[in-house]
Every structure is written in structure tokens, then in C-alpha cells.
């Protein structure tokens, strides 16, 4: 699923490891989400949206292809 996690993370000056720690998931999971290999659960998607203070539908879009 297409998402803006990488863009928002880099804009916030966060590393994947720092975001992973904030979300209580592994760095590999953040990387997999950013590359579109893994679609997070609704609670994790909401937590990410809350972290970046953005609506979840602006963070994830199921009508667009995953970015690589």
C-alpha cells in the first residue's frame, strides 16, 4: 500500500530506528512499511498517523501502488 511514512519520517529528522522505538516495533517493520512490502494493522497505522499528527488517510492510500 502506498504511504508517506518515509517522507514524514525524514521531514521529522527521524531514523527508522527512532521511529521504530517510538512505535514499539522493529526497524525492519518500519522499513517494510515504507517500501510497501508490509501493510500495518489498523492500530499501528493509527499510531503512525497520530505520531505525525496527520489523518490516517493522508498517510496511507490503498488506491495507489506501493513505492519502492
Amino acid at each position, binding site marked *: 500500500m502506498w504511504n508517506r511514512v518515509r517522507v514524514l519520517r525524514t521531514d521529522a529528522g527521524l531514523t527508522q530506528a527512532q521511529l521504530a522505538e517510538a512505535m*514499539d*516495533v*522493529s526497524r525492519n*517493520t518500519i522499513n*517494510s512499511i515504507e517500501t510497501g512490502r*508490509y501493510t*500495518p*494493522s489498523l492500530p*499501528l497505522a493509527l499510531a503512525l498517523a497520530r505520531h505525525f499528527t496527520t489523518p490516517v488517510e493522508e498517510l496511507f492510500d490503498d488506491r495507489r501502488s506501493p513505492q519502492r
Partner: protein
Amino acid sequence: MTADPRSAEARWLVPGLSLVLAVVAGVVAWLGTRDVVLALLVAGVLVVYAGVLVIGSHSETIRLLRGQTEDERGSAIEARASVASLYAVLAVVLPGAGVELFRGSPGPFTLVAAVGGLVYMVAIAVLRRRM
């Protein structure tokens, strides 16, 4: 088992169980065949597996094999791997049960197929109510 996946307990649980299984499998193989080489080979495979699990701490694959599912993605990977394993087992068990039934002598394959089928039906019924 609900140990924190990052704890020492979680790290050593599966390797420890593998070592216990190595001893049990080795003894059983020796009691069944009296073949020391075969018994050591059976136990050795499991000892090597346990060793790899202990040494490969930095690999996510090894951590998952140790049962250290760190988050929801790890759980999803474990669930999909379990389903893949199930399909492989079914590919062996179902033909085996078919042959046993064709011969008119239900055996271990038939038992495994029957138990698996029963558990699957019960699980579907229970999970449908819970989800």
C-alpha cells in the same frame, strides 16, 4: 508462552527446547535401532540447530526461528510460515492417509489427518464466534 520477546528467557527458550529434544530424539533413536551413529546423527542435527539459534542473534530470521516475534509483522510472518508448513504436512499426510484407507488399515497418517481435520473444524467454529 508470553515471555517478552526481547528477554533472555525468550532468547534461550527455543534453543533449550531444541537441546532437550536432541537428547530425547537421540535416546529414542538408539532405543529403537541400537544404532549409535544414527542416534548421534539425529541428536546432532538438533544440537546444530540450537547452536545456530544461539549464535545468530543479529539476524531477524534467526530471532523469528527462536520464537522471538517482536511485533505484529513478526507475528504475521510466523503465521504465514506456519500455514506454509501446514500445507507441506498436508501434502504428505493426505496421500498417506489415502493409501492406508485404500489398504483397509488406518494408521498414523489417517490419525494425523483425522485430528488435523477435527481441530480445523473446531477452530473455525470457535474463531468465528470470537472475531
